[in-house]
């Protein structure tokens, strides 16, 4: 999908106007951001916004997130285990120490690859 984020009052207002005129192209509205369907119309709307508001409009392209193809098992298991912890106030760093779950520092530096 095409993610459009606005950074000014004017750009946010234009985005609102665009959204009300093109509901069929909008996958999701998120306040001052919106996800357009990945169609030529979605791209046209995003580019039109950027043309009008320049750097006050950020355009990115999103991809589907499949944790089973993208995320190592150790990370998926760590997330599951952490959410099942007995004391909610425990931080992940503390929870992880002494276990086989990955250290937050390692998670931080490790980019996801397909």
């Amino acid at each position: 999908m095409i993610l459009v984020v606005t950074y000014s009052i004017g750009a946010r207002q234009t985005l609102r106007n665009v959204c009300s005129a093109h509901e069929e192209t909008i996958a999701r509205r998120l306040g001052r951001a919106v996800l357009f369907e990945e169609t030529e119309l979605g791209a046209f709307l995003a580019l039109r916004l950027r043309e009008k508001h320049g750097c006050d409009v950020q355009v990115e392209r999103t991809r589907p997130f499949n944790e089973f193809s993208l995320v190592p098992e150790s990370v998926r298991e760590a997330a599951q285990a952490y959410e099942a912890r007995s004391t909610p106030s425990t931080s992940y760093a503390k929870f992880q120490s002494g276990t086989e779950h990955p250290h937050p520092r390692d998670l931080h530096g490790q980019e996801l690859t397909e």
Partner: protein
Amino acid sequence: MTAQREPHGGQPGSRVATAPDAEQSSRLTVTIDGTTLRGVAVDLRSWSIDAEDAAAAIRGRTGTCTVACPHPGSLFDAVGVVEPSLNVSLRRVLAAVARRRGYRADVVDELRSVSAELATLSPPDCDRSEQRRQVAAAGTDEAKLAERVATIRGELQARRDAGVDVSATEKRLSDAVAALTDARTERLSAEQALDRAREDSRPPRDRRDRRLRLQDRKRNLERAIRRELADAVYNEFTAAVWRVPGESDPGRSVVEYEGDGVTAALAVLRMLRTATPAVLAVDRFDGPERAAHELGVPILRV
């Protein structure tokens, strides 16, 4: 929150003179085609001067009609020309009246600091289209060259299979492979440049984020200030509404006001009692002089 009056009252530097008392308006002098008319009210209906001309004359434009009067302030734009279709942004106007009265809203200091920070925030440019274009162009070049390499490889194989001379084809292939290697290097370096540019875009985007939050805060503060200031003079406005002709019910606050813009404008004029004249294009009074006396403002009737 309650708007407070400044110790000495009145807005510093205000150029609007105030008539000495409610029932007595200042006199004005109007000159039309060399004829001079004087009085608390001047009836222009027998002259071909419309509301727009009269307002322009009050603003100081010299033409057929000139008016000697103090320079109009910002409120003249809002309520100085009373026409039947007049729309009054009541909260805004009453806030301006309160400011002129010397009221000051609680959050003014916060507004000042927000505005000051906003003035320092000018986010740098973050246009990365040139880098994106280079990545796309390098990608296209690479793909074309890869296709060329594959084609020549095919040719080479065919020539080998046919048992003919391959030296020229080999040379072409090695040239194409070298070009492909260069193109790949170029594409990678373009991609790296774009990645770096994307990273560099973060701080400017953070600044834009901050700016938007401050702009929203500023708008909210301005709205709160207008509400607070309008509330501060609402009782006085209510009293004025009851004294001017019209069918309006002021209620207890701006949002409760039920009535037309003309009545609201007349009430505000009565509150202001300026020496600057108002242009009257409605039939609410028993003659222009009566209007001038009831409003405490010199009147140009059109």
